[in-house]
């Protein structure tokens, strides 16, 4: 790979790992489980006759859950910057009391779609905070937009 950087453990191991509470870790786990489950489901759906609009919406669902995790990671490392700009993720995700994947019985897709549609509502603070996240200078620098 010409011009690419090699990833060396000696450098990566110097990146600090943020410590957080067990409650917050649980939220990460719940969302990651949603994403893994959805990815598996979508692999099957791409080959069958699922309508492209439904499939696009489902892919958006996966992407949106990833964006929530991204937001929570930013909040973990840059809480001061985010809170100064009135951007919060944890408290809004906590308020939702997201169910664990294993507690959703039967076909999990309808329930996950319902959760997604609620969080993805244009007036929901999580959606707003994701949309306006890069108004913060620190985020724009990380995302290469500054």
């Amino acid at each position, binding site marked *: 790979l010409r011009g690419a950087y090699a990833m060396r453990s000696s450098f990566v191991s110097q990146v600090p790992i943020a410590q957080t509470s067990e409650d917050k870790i649980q939220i990460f786990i719940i969302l990651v489980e949603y994403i893994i489950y959805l990815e598996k489901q979508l692999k099957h759906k791409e080959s069958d006759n699922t309508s492209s609009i439904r499939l696009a919406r489902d892919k*958006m669902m996966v992407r949106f859950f990833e964006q929530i995790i991204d937001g929570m990671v930013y909040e973990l490392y840059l809480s001061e910057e985010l809170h100064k*700009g009135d951007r919060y993720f944890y408290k809004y995700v906590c308020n939702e009391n997201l169910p664990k994947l294993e507690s959703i019985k039967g076909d999990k897709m309808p329930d996950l779609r319902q959760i997604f549609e609620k969080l993805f509502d244009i007036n929901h603070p999580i959606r707003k905070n994701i949309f306006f996240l890069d*108004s*913060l200078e620190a985020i724009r620098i990380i995302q290469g937009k500054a």
Partner: protein
Amino acid sequence: MKITKIDIKNFRAFYGDYSIDLCKSGKNLLVYGENGSGKSSLFFALKLFLNSHVNNYNFLDYCNIFVETTDGGYLKLSLRENEYSKLITYEWSNTTKETNDILILDAAKTSGFVDYKGLLKTYFLTPEGNRVNIFDILINNLLAHSINSYTQTSFTEDWDKINTSIPKRNTALPSVMRYTGLKYKYF
């Protein structure tokens, strides 16, 4: 938040300083006037002001051409949450750039600036198909700065990325052959 006052000095068509007061409540503003009276300049004043930090615009590039650089100039936007809240004023000039505030950057992301040049393209026919290319108008004008929820970047940026990732066929050779009449064996 609403804009309650716009102050302009030596910006594009505005020679000297002007102030537009929209009252404490930030009333709606309808602008009309003859050609060259400065309607577009006011439109661009707001558009450039909101995007000046993200796009790194230089105020001097938009100064009125008849003023000396030393005369200075500015754009000031005053905002208020409601009639009783505190007035916040932001300035963009050659020496001051307060447009990196989160409030201005949020406003830039949700502002909808569409000018007549973009809309005029709804009348332009494509040379090959004799029809209007709605897709181009949407991606490059109407939705150009709208954010794609999937990628979190603007539609124009997304479209550029797609375009650059498509392998390009080398079209130089066939056109040389077309205009010179030379056959493949000469190349």
